């Protein structure tokens, strides 16, 4: 692995839940032993950073985001030694590992909460959480899980008080006005970073601090806390990365970079739904708007980009009209809707259309930021809308067409989740083994794209300028970094499209198509004419003649 402190700018991140990836001990639940066995697969895929969803002891009422102990491993997934062995093996293969740090809340089963509810009001133990005698404090603060919760306050009969929670009622929010809580969380952070973890995803970061008469989101006190965490990390373990999960408008997310002294990375939430919208509307404008409204960020910071992840395709950051459009376009089946979003994997969202999948990934890999690939999307896995919550996109990884999709040797009844078995996306049809043997498979295509993308730092580090061809079905942009100039052109339409590009600034240069290294005619003073097939895209290196 490189010693470059900005390694996260050149990373390709692969997101996976340990429980879903591979079961190494035949108990029906994925674990670190199984994940360890599959590292060669991930290395061959070309990803160089793994983001693990929560694997800590937990009642698992929110898929592990309800943590009951921060510095150990859920017994179903293995032991700390198993984790360490996996971590070392990943590093040996040149892959970094990012884990979750759920700062905002714990499980109500966490010893801190159990102790707090019995402690006298005003005591330091009680003050680990946010309590109130009434449920009227912080009135007007929005409820995030609107389908599951009616209030941000829940009455605790033991404490004889209400406790504050921005998410599920079994996830009480920690009280960061209490210095003891800050010390506890810094110790947790040190525990994992000292072990060698390369980065931490700071979950639900906008909600850390509450103040009356505010939205209780993105408060200055929250930013001060993140700055303190960053100072602590830089001093103790430089080169590690903090990734903010802040599902907010770009201007608000921008604040989580600070002056390069808060988080190194943050998700770009708004662009993802607009990519899907642009694709369905066959119009580049939603995408261009989202990118052009993206504020500049400090040099040492980076956007994290994704098409799909373990949550629903969130539509919180779009207008009501846009949300209606998205529901009509992508979730005619109401079963696909959850909270303010659509709970589907990539392939089913785009009708299992291979060209659309490739186009979306081509955009993901060529937009400014670090791409995140969600496990299974590299082989076009499907989902199960009839599993509760977001469990339909967290089904076992499909390794083979054999029993239990090669995921586990346990009895099928013991699997933590049913497998995908439908005729289109089911594991007999969609699995790693089959796609390994098919050189035209999506898996091979993804490997090639990831490999190519990693070869060019311009994608992770370069600037972007959008071109404005008259045909709005064509999205064209130029990426630049040092001597590299890359022209990307994409057809968002299901039919062949022409494009006339104003490339006057590059007069005399020769576009070389990057995938096949094919030289195209030199750019002249007239508009550059291209024809793109349905959902086709080109990446061109612009080379100076005779260079």
């Amino acid at each position: 692995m490189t010693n470059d402190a900005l390694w996260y700018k050149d990373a390709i991140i692969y997101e996976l839940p340990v429980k879903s990836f591979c079961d190494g001990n035949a108990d029906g639940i994925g674990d670190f032993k199984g994940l360890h066995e599959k590292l060669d697969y991930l290395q061959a895929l070309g990803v160089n950073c793994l983001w693990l969803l929560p694997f800590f002891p937990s009642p698992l009422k929110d898929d592990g985001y309800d943590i009951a102990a921060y510095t150990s491993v859920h017994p179903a997934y293995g032991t700390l030694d198993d984790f360490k062995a996996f971590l070392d093996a990943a590093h040996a293969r040149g892959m970094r590992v990012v884990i979750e740090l759920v700062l905002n809340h714990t499980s109500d089963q966490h010893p801190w909460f159990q102790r707090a509810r019995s402690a006298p009001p005003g005591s330091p133990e009680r003050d680990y959480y946010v309590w109130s005698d009434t449920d009227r404090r912080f009135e007007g603060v929005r409820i995030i899980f609107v389908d599951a919760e009616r209030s941000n306050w829940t009455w605790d009969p033991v404490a004889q008080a209400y406790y504050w929670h921005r998410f599920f009622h079994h996830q009480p929010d920690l009280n960061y006005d209490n210095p003891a809580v800050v010390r506890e969380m810094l110790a947790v952070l040190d525990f994992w970073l000292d072990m060698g973890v390369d980065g931490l995803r700071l979950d639900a970061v906008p909600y850390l601090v509450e103040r009356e008469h505010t939205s209780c989101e993105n408060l200055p006190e929250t930013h001060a806390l993140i700055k303190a965490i960053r100072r602590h990390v830089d001093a103790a373990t430089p080169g590690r990365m903090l990734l903010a999960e802040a599902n907010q408008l770009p201007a608000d997310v921008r604040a989580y970079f600070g002056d390069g002294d808060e988080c190194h990375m943050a998700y770009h939430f708004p662009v993802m739904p607009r990519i899907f919208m642009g694709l369905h509307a066959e119009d580049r404008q939603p995408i261009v708007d989202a990118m052009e409204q993206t504020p500049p960020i400090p040099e040492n910071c980076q956007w994290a980009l994704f098409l799909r992840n373990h949550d629903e395709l969130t539509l919180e950051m779009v207008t009501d009209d846009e949300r209606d459009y998205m529901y009509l376009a992508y979730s005619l089946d109401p079963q696909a809707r959850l909270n303010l979003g659509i709970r589907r994997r990539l392939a089913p969202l785009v009708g299992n259309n291979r060209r659309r999948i490739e186009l979306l990934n081509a955009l993901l890999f060529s937009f400014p930021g670090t791409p995140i690939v969600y496990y299974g999307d590299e082989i076009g896995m499907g989902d199960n809308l009839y599993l509760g919550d977001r469990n339909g996109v967290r089904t076992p990884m499909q390794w083979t067409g054999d029993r239990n999709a090669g995921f586990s040797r346990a009895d099928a009844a013991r699997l933590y989740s049913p497998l995908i078995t439908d005729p289109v996306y089911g594991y007999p049809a969609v699995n790693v083994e089959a796609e390994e043997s098919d050189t035209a498979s999506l898996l091979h295509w993804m490997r090639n794209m990831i490999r190519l993308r990693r070869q060019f730092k311009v994608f992770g580090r370069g600037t972007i300028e959008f071109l404005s061809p008259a045909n709005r079905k064509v999205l064209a942009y130029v990426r630049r970094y040092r001597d590299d100039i890359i022209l990307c052109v994409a057809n968002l339409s299901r039919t062949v499209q022409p494009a006339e590009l104003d490339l006057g600034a590059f007069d005399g240069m020769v576009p070389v198509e990057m995938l096949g290294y094919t030289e195209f005619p030199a750019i002249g003073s007239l508009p550059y004419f291209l024809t793109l097939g349905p959902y086709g895209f080109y990446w061109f290196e612009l080379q100076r003649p005779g260079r």
Partner: protein
Amino acid sequence: MASTGSNSSVRAAEAEAAQVENAAPAEVVVGLTSHNDAATIGAVVHAVQAALETAGRADTARLVLADAGSSDGTREVVRGLVAPPRLIELEYARGATFREMPYHGAPGRATALRGILEAAHQLGARACAVVDANRQAADPACIDLLMTPVLRDGFDYVSPYYARHANEGAMTKGIVYPVFRALYGARLRQPAASEFGCSGRLLSHYLAEPFWEAEHAAAGIDLWLAVAAACGDFLTCEAALGAREVSPRGAPADLSTTLAQVAGALFADLDTRVDGWQRVRGSVEVPMVGTVPALETDGPSLNLDGLVESFRLGSRELRDIWTWVLPPRTIVELRKMSDAPPDRFVFDDRLWATIIYDFAFGYCHPVMPRDHLLRSLTPLYSGWLASFAREMRGAGLAQADERVEQLCLAFEAEKRYLISRWRWPERLR
């Protein structure tokens, strides 16, 4: 390459470190790598001393001897001619066991070179020249040519150019140089030579490179140093060092082993330097210092019929292996060549270039054990060599260079083919 530590080797290493640390700064360091070279090293040391005396650098130079555990009195010969503090002996080989014997017969060469460069760095040397101890003829003027371009003309890397008959150094002419030049853009004609000169700036760069402990470093290190110089912001030149005659160290490696080690070292760098070589287009000439002498003797003769027969045998026996890395059109071409009468046996330059690139690609995207793949290149190389040698029969140095130039242009032209395969690999079977 592995070494086993012992208390005595630790003590020796400490003594060596103290020897370097306590030495006065040096303007020039001449490194000698040796292994059972008692018969030749005395003359080489004399030549080095003469070169330094003539240049007025004897007082500001150090001789660093990196001996790979000779048992024939090599070190004693040197001690009889130079004494500390002008002589610094590296103990890198004491207590070491070297698993791999490279084709050039110098075990642990990477460790030896690293020791020399580290010593030169610590001594603050402006220039460092590495000279082989098994030279049969050591000319002071040639040794000076490895240093003066650095000290006087500001070059960072001096690559030797030995006058060779058309058939000599054919592996370099047919594979190493054309690939090196096409990939890295520098026309260093003998980039894997075991002698070189470098500046203090470049040796600092070398010491920060990750290749010292890489697999096959013993065989590949000389080439990798040239690659690192070509890929960085360094001024390079060639020095005409005359004809090179060396005493063989032990039994020579067989062709297949030599080819596997040389090609393996060449291909191993492709993956790590992919950001660089895919951006290089064309190549640039590098300046030459010194004069290339005329060759007085005839070159070695080759058994051309035997080489062609080796190619044909390979075509019959190894075709299945080749189909793992070579595309069908190449296999068909090779079959046609195999059927051709001996007097019409010609290996097309572009075909040869694409074959080498296909093997390079197959090496970096392994479809079979790499050693098997590389050894299967031997009959193809025999075929190319037969074709080249027949064409070069009776040719002089200039004609041979001209022919190699043509071949290099074919490698440059076909580089797109390699990049294309690399960018979008499709398995053939």
